[in-house]
Structures are given as structure tokens and as C-alpha cells.
């Protein structure tokens, strides 16, 4: 099971929880599992018009590293997953 840290706007979908657990061998599978448990989650995280990628402006982190294969990023067992806004640099 992966531990998913929810950004504040998504916590309402999970009854206010700041982190939830869900299964999945890849980031995509995890989001599908989240959607089953907490409807609305997939729409908030994935852009259906953009080949189902994580929404632009948001970055998924797996164990504190950026997920570089998009939804196909493999998840190790007991992975920690974060969804964070994109960062601008100078």
C-alpha cells in the first residue's frame, strides 16, 4: 500500500484526512484506486485532455523524488506519494 499525502484542497474528498493509503503498482493504478475510494480524486489530479497526465502545474513525488514517467512511474511497496504545485526558479 502506498501512503498518499493529500494537498489541502483534496482533503475534503477524503473526509478531511491529510494522508490516505491506497494500493497500486504504478502512479496511474494508484490514482485509479484513489478514485474508487474517493470519487473526484482522479479529476483533480489528472488532465483527461492531456493524455491522462498529471495536471500541468502539479508534480507527483514518489519517495520525495519527482515522478518522471508520469502515470507509469512504478511505485515501490510502501511508497510515499505527494502531489505538489510546480516551482518556479530564477
Amino acid at each position, binding site marked *: 500500500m502506498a501512503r498518499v499525502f493529500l494537498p*489541502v*484542497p*483534496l482533503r475534503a474528498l477524503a473526509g478531511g484526512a491529510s494522508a490516505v493509503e491506497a494500493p497500486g503498482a504504478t502512479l496511474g493504478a494508484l490514482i485509479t484506486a484513489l478514485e474508487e475510494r474517493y470519487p473526484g480524486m482522479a479529476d483533480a489530479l489528472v488532465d483527461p485532455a492531456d493524455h491522462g497526465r498529471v495536471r500541468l502545474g502539479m508534480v507527483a513525488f514518489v519517495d*520525495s523524488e*519527482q515522478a518522471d514517467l508520469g502515470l507509469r512511474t512504478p511505485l515501490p511497496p510502501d511508497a*510515499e506519494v505527494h502531489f505538489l504545485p510546480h516551482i*518556479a*526558479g*530564477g
Partner: protein
Amino acid sequence: MTTVDKPHYKVLGTRPIRHDGLDKVLGRAVYGADIKLAGLATGAVLRSPHAHARIKGIDASAALALPGVFAVVTGADMPIADDQLIDMTEEIVNARFASMRIIAHDKALFKGQPVAAVAAVDQNTAQEACRLIKVDYEPLPAVFTVEEAMAPGAPIIHEHLVGTHVGEKVPHTNVAEHTQHVLGDPDAAMDKADVTVEGEFRLARVHQGYIEPHNATAMWYRDGKATVWTSTQGSFPARNAISSVLRMPVSAIKVVPLEIGGGFGGKINIYLEPIAILLSKKAGRPVKVVMDRRSVFEATGPGPGGVVRMKLGADKAGNLVAGTVDIRFAAGAFPGSSISAASTCVFASYRFPSARIDAYDVLTNLTKTAAYRAPGSPQATFATESLMDELAHQLGMDPVALRLQNASKEGDRRPDGIVFPRIGNVEVLEAVRDSDHYRTPLDRAGAAPGHKRGRGVATGYWQGVGNRSTVTLAVNNDGTVALIEGNTDIGGTRASIAMQAAEVLGIPALDVHPTVVDTDSVGYTDLTAGSRTTYATGAAAVKAAEQVVAELKRRAAIMWEVEAADVDFAGGVFTNRKAADQHLSFKQVCARLDRTGGHVSTTGVVNLRGSGGGSFATHVVDVDVDTETGKVEVIRYTAAQDAGTAVHPSYVEGQMAGGAVQGIGWALNEEYYLGPDGSVQNASFLDYRMPTMLDAPTIETLIVEVPNTMHPFGVRGIGESGIVPPQPAIANAMRDALGIRFPELPIKPGRVLEALDAQGA
């Protein structure tokens, strides 16, 4: 240098002369404005005199009638793009807003916004033609500060914008975005804290202040393609943006990055490039447009000002228990004011068991802000580090000891959830604690009559980014290697990238010849920004060089008639395992490339997931204050920073000193001084008072090396963290000197005098 577990390097850590240096000291390097093309026309831009106005009509007939004028473009030539997010690497830009910003359409949204542009035979004719364009404006009420923009009944800048306020969609608002991060239960923890400190901190807009103005030269071709020569921090992201706003495929646009005269984040966004292309299309000839200095201040992207309210709680022993912060940045006329990075950095230096971070991206009728060196971090950290200083006073603790006790380290979780890998926060603080500067008591008695002295310390963080880079190496048969890359070189990155390839290849740094090429000539490469170039493009160079080594082992094997697996390579020498006395130098193998299978060229492509934890910086500063005039002199300054592995120490020290002096200017004098109409009243290098050589102190530098686990040589990006500590360090030194907390930047002499008055009253 403080160095942790550093392997022995041959090239890294040395100080070769940079490869592009000769051209730059001879005046031969070609910067954006230096390009010459046959038949080149000159462009000029007409800008809005109003901060907010409806544009009812534009009559360019008199301009077009002026002899020597080739073309005029207006917003009608660049229709507003559809809503579409452009990936600018580290910033996501909505194409619709980008097109609205680059040239005004039905409304001008800030003073200085382009309204029309002219191409003519020379600069003066183009400028005179601009003055002949008649624009019918209907001025509208405008807002310039966070408070004005968020006040009930405030004029709405974008009628159709729907704000996102912690996930909720809110129409009819100037708050484009309100984000929130919550860790634990900060309110409960704050209630239980033994000591709390809080404050409201106010920040003015500040400009990057690069010496070279923006420029773009474009040639439109009849087959629908265009070439743009420009000074940019990212030719590929610029190509993406041009493609979106002009609705051209990326393959139709070639961006040729010329030498760039400073950026600091300000040359990521595009400004003149689409205008130059449209002018060239209409004029049928290449067109060069160079911005004047006033427009650079009025109409490019400064760093945001705003308001930061913060509260910190700690227990009696000095352990932080909670932090809450409310960050409101004035973005300017379009969304995007570095609030996400500010949120990431604001509490990153310490372990916070609980925290809440609210951040607001607020629209105002000013030019849209842009990235400025560690964007958002200096503004937010000014509050954190000022309050850490107050906390040290309240607890009676040494300010470095308090920071060390709470310093974040490997395994600690940032309030936005990310867990730190190996970082050098503690080592940097220890370097300052043990420095000659910090161990030498301040000579307070040495101050002249009427002067007071103080010392301050502050820490700053920038997380850096990774992302995509491509490097191609081509091996020459004389044993040198051509290195092709796509990152414009703002501060010596040709050298720092080439040195990493040289390290792998075991050859001298100057035997690798780096060239920065256009977007048709190398694979996708992200910005020269985000402290990523030496780190990420360096990693691509390492990857390409490792492929060269693998191939040259095969070539050596052919020469020895053995298997490639029988060839070892170390320190630039190939060894035959089957005959230990057989060695070939890199040069010797290269000399035989033709007869062992032809020339060798490799490409390294990386997409680095993050920065490896980023870089921390701690500064200590001594100030001397003339209490009669309010003038502050910096009399001693030491900067320490974690470089992971310092590739070229001179350029690491240069980044540290440069960041410190830029921060000193920000702390003491620099600000956008706005008139009641939103005009930038000090839009010149005379009145936007950047430090001169006589204002800047000598910066003592302490390079700390805690290797980055995500880079093959442990390199960290070091370009940005150094601008974060100076402002609070100086404010803390002022507190020490005068007993006065300065919660507003800049701490300019008039403000110091007022505060001394209030203290005396």
C-alpha cells in the same frame, strides 16, 4: 572549505580559465544587441501611459506614412491565445495571459505595457513613428497593492478570471490563487508553546537589475518559419512560449541564444520575441528590437513585493513546535508570483512538527512579476529569519545555536511533505559558527561618535530543480572533445559543464570545447535557472562522457586486438588487462579513430527528478549605522553555502558574493517607488539604487561541500540560495545595533531615521 567524504578529483575543484573568457575580455562576444544581419531594420515599442485603460482605437496611419517606416503591429496582429498551459520548465504559463501581456488588446493592464510596435530604417525613426501612433484610451480605476486589490469592491483586473482558493473556484476576484499546506495541528501546538514571536513583514517589488536590456532580433521566412536571436535564459522554453502565442509549431521556430548579459530569472519569460517576429513578417526583412532601461523596469518581470504575516512557537528549550504564515504577493497584471516556491522554502530550514502555510497570488495593475533568484524565498524567509532572531533574543540563546538546534537534516519532513535527502544545512551553520568572523567579537567601541554597530545572522534555502538537459560530445582525432549544449552561459557554465566531461574523460578542462547552440542543433534543454545548469546539464555531460569512454575502450580493444572487457580506463589512460605494460592515452586512442571504426560522437540526455535536496546558505554580517543620517554601512560580511562538490570554486565564490551583494542592495535601498498612478518613479539605474563598487563590502566566502546523492559527482546547484540570507541578516544586525526591529524592506536611511525618532520619542 568544509568537505565531507570527497573523492579525489583531477579537474573538479580546479580553477581553469573559462572557455568563453577570451571573447568576453576582447569585446568580441556577441550579445543579443550585437547581432548584425543584412537589411536589418530596427524596432521600437509604443507603451501604455496608463496602468489600466480600455483601448478604444489605434490609428497608426501617420506612423506608416513617415519615411523610413516599414511596418506597424498592434494587438490585432497577435490575437489572444486560447487557454493553454505552456511548460516553461519550472513555471507554467497560460498562453492566453502570455499573449495578453506581450501586447495589449482591448485593455492595457499596466503602465509600460506594449500597445503597438514599429519597424523602421533606424532607431530614431522607429521611436518617432511610435509617437505618431494615436491611441484612444479610456482610463480605468487601478489597484497597485495587495490590500487595494483584495479590498471589497476593488476594480477587477480580469473580468473572466476564476480564482482557485484552496481548491474552490471563485469568480470575480483579484486573488488568482490561494494555496495552503498544513502539517499536523499548528493551532493546538502554538497554544502549548512556551514562547511565541510574530510579526507582519512588508516587501517592496525589486528588480533583478541585469545590465543588459532585453532584446530580440527576428527573421520571418516566407515558408512560415522564423528565426529569433535573443538573450534568454532558456531557448527551448522560449520556443515553447513563442509557439503558443503565435500559434506556430515549435519546429517552425529556431531560437538562437546569443550571449546574455545577466538574467537572475528575469530573462525566462518572453517579451520582445513575438513582436520582432510579427514586425519581420510585415516588414519583409529582419528586425531587431532592444528595450530601453526605463521599459526594463516598467515592463519586465521584477520579483514580487507583498505582505508576510508569521508566527513561530517554541518550547523553553528552544525547540520549534509550530509555525504559521500568511504570504500575499502582488503578482502584477497576470497570475504567477512565486508563491509556490515561497511556500516550499519558508520553513524549510528548520524542523517544524506542525505548520500551516497560506499563500495568495494577488493581481495588481503593475507589470507581471517573474522569477528573481530563489524566487519567493527571500521575501518569505525575511519573516522567518527575522522571527528566529527574535526567538533567540527571547530565549537568550545564541542565534546560530538556536538555528543549529532546529536545523533540518536528512530524513526530516518539510511542511509541504517532502522528506529531505542528504543536505548540508547543519554543516553550513557549523562553518559559520566556527568562522573567524563569528568567533571574532564585533568591535562595537570602534564606532565613530553617533554611530552604532551590530551583528546579524540568517539562513536561507533554495531547493533547486533538475529537469531535462542534453549534451552532445564529438571526439576529435587530436584528443580534444567538442561539447554541444543548449544552456546559455550566464556565469561560467560552459566551464563548469565542460569540466565535468573532462573529469570523466581524464583530460584537461581546456581540451573540452563547449559551444552553446540553437534549438535546431541540440536536444531539448531546460532553462539556465533554478540552480540547475551545472547540476543537470553537468549530469548530461557526464552521461555523454561515460558513453565516450565505453566506445573508446572498444577502440583501444581493436588496437590491442583484445575484447573491450579487457580494457580498463582511469585518469585518462587505457590499460590492457591482458598485458599490464600496455597503456594508451586518451590522445593516442583518439588519433586512431579513423582506423578503428570512424569518429565518435555521443549524446547524454537526462531528466533529473529533483535537485537532490537543494542548497543552504548562512550569512553573518556586521553593520555600522550613522544614527544621525540613517546610513548603514556593511563593514564585514561572511557567506557560507553548501555547494555539494564545488566544480569551479572561483565561480562558486562568485555566485556567493554576487548573491550577497544583490541581497545587500535589496536590504538597504532597492525598491519600486510607485507614483499614485502606478508609474515606477525610479525607473533608472540612477534612482533604483543598486550597490556600486564603493557600497559593496568584501564578501568572505566559505564553501561547504556535502555531496549531492543525486549527482554523479555530488554537485549541487548554487546560484540562488545566496540571495536569501542577506536581507534578514542585515535586519538582525540592525536589531543588534539599535534595538529596533525593521519589518519592512528596504531598510533605507529615511526609514532608519524615522525608527530612531520613534524610539527616542
